């Protein structure tokens, strides 16, 4: 049997490919691209929410938000580590991010304009991420699947926190309720767009499904998300901004208006409201921190040298 046959048989048996295993180059590349994009999304995703850390309206909310943004940094770290098992370094990946050669989730190119947006991101954006990611816990590549299990556990915690923020607002003062509704109005369609273009236009789906990296199509996942949200919006007492949203008894699912995919393409291309700010922020942090990283490296080298000298002397 060839290496390729072995690879195929592992996939067919629903078992895991591990870093030590042979894998086709295109499988490796697809995974690197996807995991990196996922890691970048965690890192860039710190910005829109972090924007409200300094202004969180209560100390409890400030603590929860700080912890959430910290979790995102943590997710970024272990996703980069998962990507590194595929033979690429974090430094290379970060370089590709700040040079715009790799993408991150387009949703983070929208601005957070109010505190309610922190809630909406938790509820809708993290909600969509979970729908996307739960199947990835069974992904064929072991390190990615295991990272996803951990990420999903924390994400569902974040999603509940976001829901709770909106719930409090929606049951608060009229101004708070308006803030919550405004936020849902702005985040609904961008969240639907997070599942990517419709299946008819999706480039990578078939191969990824065959490799069991992907388990459901974009449209299947989007539908699942819509059905989930309708119920929760009802509990919140907020309206999803789609007049054509309704239960379809035949399909046993909700009919809904598709997001503006042309807008999605524009945002992916770089023309969202915040693309430049997000990348500029990352670049600035990277550049401003260079002297610190250099210092840490220089100190570590000196320490190693000193230890070497001590050994020689001993």
């Amino acid at each position, binding site marked *: 049997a060839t290496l390729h046959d072995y690879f195929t048989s592992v996939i067919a048996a629903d078992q895991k490919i591990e870093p030590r295993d042979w894998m086709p180059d295109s499988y490796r590349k697809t995974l690197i691209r996807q995991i990196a994009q996922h890691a970048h999304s965690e890192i860039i995703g710190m910005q829109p929410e972090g924007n409200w*850390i300094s202004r969180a*309206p209560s*100390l409890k909310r400030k603590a929860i938000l700080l912890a959430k943004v*910290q979790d995102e940094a943590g997710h970024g770290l272990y996703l980069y580590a998962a990507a590194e098992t595929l033979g690429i370094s974090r430094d290379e990946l970060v370089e590709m991010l700040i040079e715009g050669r790799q993408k991150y989730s387009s949703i983070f190119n929208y601005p957070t304009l109010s505190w309610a947006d922190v809630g909406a991101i938790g509820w809708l954006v993290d909600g969509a991420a979970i729908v996307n990611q739960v199947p990835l816990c069974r992904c064929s590549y072991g390190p990615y699947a295991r990272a996803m299990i951990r990420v999903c556990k924390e994400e569902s915690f974040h999603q509940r926190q976001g829901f709770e923020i909106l719930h409090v*607002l929606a049951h608060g003062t009229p101004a708070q309720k308006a803030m919550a509704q405004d936020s849902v109005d702005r985040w609904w369609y961008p969240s639907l767009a997070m599942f990517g273009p419709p299946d008819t236009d999706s480039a990578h789906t078939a191969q990824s499904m065959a490799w069991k990296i992907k388990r459901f199509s974009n449209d299947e996942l989007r539908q699942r998300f819509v059905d989930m949200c309708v119920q929760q919006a009802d509990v919140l007492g907020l309206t999803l901004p789609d007049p054509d949203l309704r239960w379809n008894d035949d399909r046993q699912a909700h009919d809904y208006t598709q997001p503006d995919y042309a807008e999605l393409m524009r945002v992916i291309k770089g023309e969202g409201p915040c693309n430049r700010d997000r990348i500029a*922020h990352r670049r600035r*942090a990277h550049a401003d921190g*260079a*002297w610190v990283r250099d210092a840490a490296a220089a*100190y570590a080298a000196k320490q190693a040298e000193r230890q070497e000298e001590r050994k020689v002397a001993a």
Partner: protein
Amino acid sequence: MKPTVDHVLAIADDALITAQRLGEWYAAAPEMEEDVALANIALDQLGAARLLLTYAGELEGAGRDEDALAFLRDDREFRNCLLVELPDADFAVTIVKLLFLSAWQLPLYAALAEGDDERLAAIGAKARKESAYHLDHSSQWTIRLGDGTEESHRRVQAAVDELWPYAHELFAADPAAPVDPAGLRDAWLSTVEGVLAEATLRRPADGWGPAGGRTGVHTEHLSYLLAEMQVLHRAHPGATW
């Protein structure tokens, strides 16, 4: 004897303003690991601040909870030392501020943990462990920066020189305080001098010691920090979040 509200607020506000400044670093630290670490420390400081503010509110007995105290006082009513409100001009400043503060918080919380007041003792017992981590973290970075490159040495020495005068305020004698700050100076000096020496940094001469924070006379920086921190809470009087 119960501690006074102002004495508890002083410790609480140090922690709160520190958390607020550290929170400004989100997604901007030199390394991703440091994003995690700084958020961790901010969370610890915020946690201590919340317990202390709650206690201060109870001692005051006017019905103010942690949020009323955090969001509805103006800068003249804040009791934090000036050190913590200074802007974090670069990572070296952040680290040295944290070094100076945590080398003070650690013996303070330790003393509170052994003190008569049960509430402060409980808070001190929890917070001293966290302070030990903050001190370790900031010490390690001070050493790395001081003994790193020429550039990092220059920057961290500049931060030490700039911030040293502000440390004096921490030790102003106050025999009525739950722990007299004057008694913490020896422990602080021995800790900090040790770190500076290992970091190949010069210990500045003592001299000018700006003060006023404990009586509400702050730098021009604090009111900007509070304007941002309090804006949303104040825009919705009486709302819950």
